[in-house]
């Protein structure tokens, strides 16, 4: 009897210990396009134009509704990118300043009129002496068109040789380009969520946010949660803080209720509008004026906790940038957060 029990025991151990995940094969019904009702705030664009044989179309990514790799005769590569920015408040000069900024003081610049589809736009030509290992291309041609409340950017970039070779093709492409708006979910092109976007499929916010977030290198990206799709951790010594970026429609529930909600999170009493006005500071950003608040309290475990929050109304949305954590980390990264918001390309 004892031996039988020992054998059963041994088999039970082996049965559990040998469990190993295996490749699974199954059949499913054909997956059709998801039957989703149209979303009122997320239009999709279809951009077509005449392209030469050495342009290879790539999947659209985030704000890039069309992009191509341009192959030069010497083997080097450039790229053509098309980006629409709807409802953008920044002026043309402010946008041009961003391009110029990339080239520093050695920028060479010229501009002329160009036909984009059936409309007239402007073509800017920037070049500079970039170091070989720089991420900034040697030359950029940017065509700009403002049409139906959308700012369109067509950018050809690469080294001098590639851009020079592709210049005429780029002009032809601009002349022939067609910009069509399609219903959401109907695009057949693969879409990629690159560069610091979350893997989260549980939110559509990421797709509507700018793709290229210039976050400082010492911000460690964290996986998103439904309430905060963009999250970063910052540290200083042994102290840490969490940065969340959220965008809400309209005023996001109002300034004072949100501030008081944050205060409640660190066990501070609510304040009224008059008190709030005394405690806020204002900063300038590319999208307008933002307000900064800085409170110190304690968290649920009664540990000292500080919140630095920046609230920025931009267009039909309000952005919330919030850093919560221990004083050391918040203090060390407060300036970085403010600079990030000021450099944020909306």
């Amino acid at each position: 009897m004892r031996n039988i029990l020992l054998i059963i025991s041994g088999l039970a151990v082996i049965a559990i210990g040998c469990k190993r995940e295996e490749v699974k094969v199954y059949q499913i019904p054909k997956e059709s396009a998801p039957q989703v009702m149209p979303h009122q705030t997320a239009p999709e664009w279809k951009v077509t134009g005449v392209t030469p044989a050495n342009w290879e179309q790539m999947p659209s990514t985030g704000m890039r509704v069309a992009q191509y790799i341009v192959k030069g005769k010497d083997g080097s590569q450039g790229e053509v990118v098309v980006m629409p920015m709807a409802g953008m408040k920044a002026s043309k000069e402010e946008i041009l300043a961003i391009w110029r900024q990339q080239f520093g003081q050695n920028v060479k610049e010229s501009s002329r009129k160009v036909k984009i589809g059936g409309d007239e736009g402007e073509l800017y030509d920037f070049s500079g002496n970039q170091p070989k290992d720089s991420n900034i291309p040697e030359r950029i041609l940017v065509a700009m068109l403002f049409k139906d409340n959308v700012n369109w950017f067509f950018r050809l970039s690469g080294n001098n040789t590639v851009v020079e070779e592709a210049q005429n093709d780029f002009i032809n492409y601009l002349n022939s380009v067609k910009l069509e708006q399609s219903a959401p979910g109907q695009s057949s092109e693969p879409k990629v969520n690159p560069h610091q976007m979350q893997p989260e499929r549980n939110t559509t916010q990421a797709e509507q946010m700018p793709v290229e977030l210039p976050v400082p290198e010492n911000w460690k990206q964290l996986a998103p949660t439904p309430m905060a799709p963009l999250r970063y951790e910052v540290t200083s010594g042994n102290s840490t803080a969490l940065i969340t970026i959220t965008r809400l429609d309209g005023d996001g529930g109002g300034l004072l209720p949100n501030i008081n909600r944050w205060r409640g999170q660190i066990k501070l009493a609510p304040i009224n509008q008059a008190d709030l006005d005394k405690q806020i500071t204002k900063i300038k950003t590319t999208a307008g004026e933002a307000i900064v608040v800085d409170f110190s309290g304690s968290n649920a475990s009664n540990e000292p906790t500080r919140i630095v929050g920046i609230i920025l109304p931009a267009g039909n949305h309000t952005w919330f940038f919030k850093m919560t954590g221990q004083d050391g980390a918040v203090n060390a990264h407060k300036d970085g957060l403010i600079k990030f918001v000021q450099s944020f390309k909306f």
Partner: protein
Amino acid sequence: MRLTVVCLALAMILVFIGTLAQVDKGIFIVQKEFFQSFIVISDLRVFNYRIPVIFPGGYLIGLVLLLNLFVSNVMRFDLQPKRIGLLITHFGLLVLLVGQLLIDQFHTESNMRLVEGQSLNYSESYNRCELALVKISDPQADTVVSIPESLLEKGSVIRNPHIPFQVKIHEYFPNSRIENVSGGGENTASTLGAGRQLRVIPLPPETKSDSRNAPSAIVEIIGDNAPSGTWLVSLFIEQPQEFNVGNEKWTISLRPERYYKPYFITLIDFKHEKYPGTDIPKNFSSRVKITNPQTGEEREVLIYMNNPLRYGGETYYQGSFDPNDDRVSILQVVRNPAWATPYIACILVGLGMTIHFIINLGIFVNEQRKK
């Protein structure tokens, strides 16, 4: 009895060191290393010192407890009326231990994200991923070959009779992010597909329970008529990438592990109320329609807080919502075939102890009367 006490003491120590390790390693790694293993071979960080840990794992302690209980009851089996309560109590404990083992092996939790009007026949895992190869050229149905993340090791080659090619894993990053590489070039992650304009930045594994890893891998499809080159697959690349092998059209993607169901859930309406002026949820509910082609069933159900839908062996809870899209409902899907075992075990233990108490009370009263 002595062995049981030793096992319980070891279990307490295991829970203690597992809890300490959780701070550093995160709940999922600790679950796997400490509790779902026979031997713990790990380390523990205490005041910036790493202390190696070699200790009996959760499976070993649980199995020894289970077998000790089972063997001692069989060896000392004695069906006397006054022992019936003890036997029932011990049987309840056996049910509890076996039930926990079954739950550990078969319990799954996933989520189903639905936009109003959308139908889905699968839910997705929170923390597990799969490399999915799908043959889409068959007009009748798609064939899915799901390779679990645990098999994605650098240098490994995956073969399966259902795929006419081999998959070689060149690189595997358990957690990563990806970046655009302007203009492509030599620094890109792969030579084919979306990875020609992207590069992978490896990241340390997530340790927080509300965070998930975002794995990426660079793979090669090897076979006759297969495209020559490497592909980047990543949780960040949402759309599957297509390739042809001979006349067959396939897609490849790294995605959250999917649990397919033989029925569809359609979200008809999602209601989400917040307390005025805040983002704090007050009440939220999802009206869904179940369509089961196998049974011809088609009916509407309202899921709301504390009122889940139980269907097809799974329970659908109103899990979450998308704060930025009021048409989106996120349902938590729980499959737990052994859900009843803790209840049965508690009833048995309670019943056994009650019977044992009553019998002993009777004996005591009788003895008192005789005196």
